[in-house]
């Protein structure tokens, strides 16, 4: 039972972590497919 709960916690931690990392590495479509001349956020 403990192993199961630990795994579920790990899923949450990995998900939040990967979301953070993916935002840092600059692989979002916005960063890949648009340039400095494109304003998507504004």
């Amino acid at each position, binding site marked *: 039972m*403990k192993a*199961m709960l*630990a*795994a579920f916690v790990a*899923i949450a931690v990995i998900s939040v972590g990967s979301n953070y990392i993916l935002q840092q590495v600059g692989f979002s479509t916005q960063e890949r497919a648009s*340039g400095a001349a494109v304003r998507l956020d504004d």
Partner: protein
Amino acid sequence: MLRALIAMLLTLSFITVAQAQEADAPAAGPDRSATGGAQTLEDIMARQRGEAVDNAFRSEAIGDPNSAAGMANQLGTLGGASDPELWRELRFGSADITTQYNGPAATTLVQDGGMQWLLWRQGPLATYGAYLLGGTILLLALFYLIRGRIRIDGPKTGRTIERFKAVERFGHWLLAGSFILLGITGLITLFGRKVLIPAFGHEAFSTLAIASKWVHNNVSWAFMLALVMIFVMWVIHNLPDRTDINWILKGGGIFTKGHPPAKKFNAGQKLIFWSVIVLGTSISITGLALLFPFEINMFAATFDKLNSFGISNALGMGELRTTLAPHEEMQYAQLWHAIVSFVLMAIVLAHIYIGSLGMEGAYDAMGSGEVEEQWAREHHSLWVEEVKAKEKKAASESATPAE
């Protein structure tokens, strides 16, 4: 029997001859003189009837500035190519396009794979996928009604054996938990427009879809990590051996009294293991292609392999296209991702059933990790012998007094 075989071989040889003749016959192109080489009503009707139309007469009609009438001429065009010719270049992907920003797929301005993908995704994929999952659940319910719960036959001993260590159970639940989350959020994404929006409205679905996307994109990493863990930990126990043949011949003992002998994993469990590994890997690779759009393109290369090995022809799909627009690579990745996921979901539904409701004593293996000795003897007799032999050896070694 022999006569039937000869008849079948003859029939097959005739089919091959017929196909060869079709291929040899010169392609009698339709007469397009009335339209000056442009497409005719018959071309349009044929396409609407869903027939394959050779588009070469259009894709190659992209103008030739060198032989075009001069710009000042009455029929002359700017740049030596007319607008329709330019649009055909864009439409068939042969235009020389330069973009300011060279992001992925930036130079593909028109691609026509999207409509086919959309229809396939909301048509056969969603329909047959739902049938598959629904059918699996119905079959399991029917099985439960007929066979009932598979009980431990003999008297319980009260003693337990450790079946899975904590790290093994952790890996299993990492895979299981992430797979269920990915399955549910994937289904939400697939059935959004056709089922959930009509049922709950755009507002509610929007929130659900954004949450689903976040979960699906990020939980995927836990799934991939767990897949590697499971493979490394269990592959040694899942290599096929002689005991599997006997197990399969006896149908796993599902409908008979008693169970065929098995090691740590029986042949049924090995099938689950390899399904999860092979299908899970395929889902992961296509998933990565979808997570990083246009970065991982594999379908053109795969189709080329299928063509050269003659597999696509054998399956009646003819020659598959080997030049795909970047968007078409993504469309195929999505379809394959979903098809394989549906198959794996159906398999895992059966796995969940037999590991919980369907069999007494099975859940403990992944719950506490300790299984009832009688259960182990009935389902994994050879494994119990191995464990007992190891225990004996360890006991006799520790009993030897230190010199």
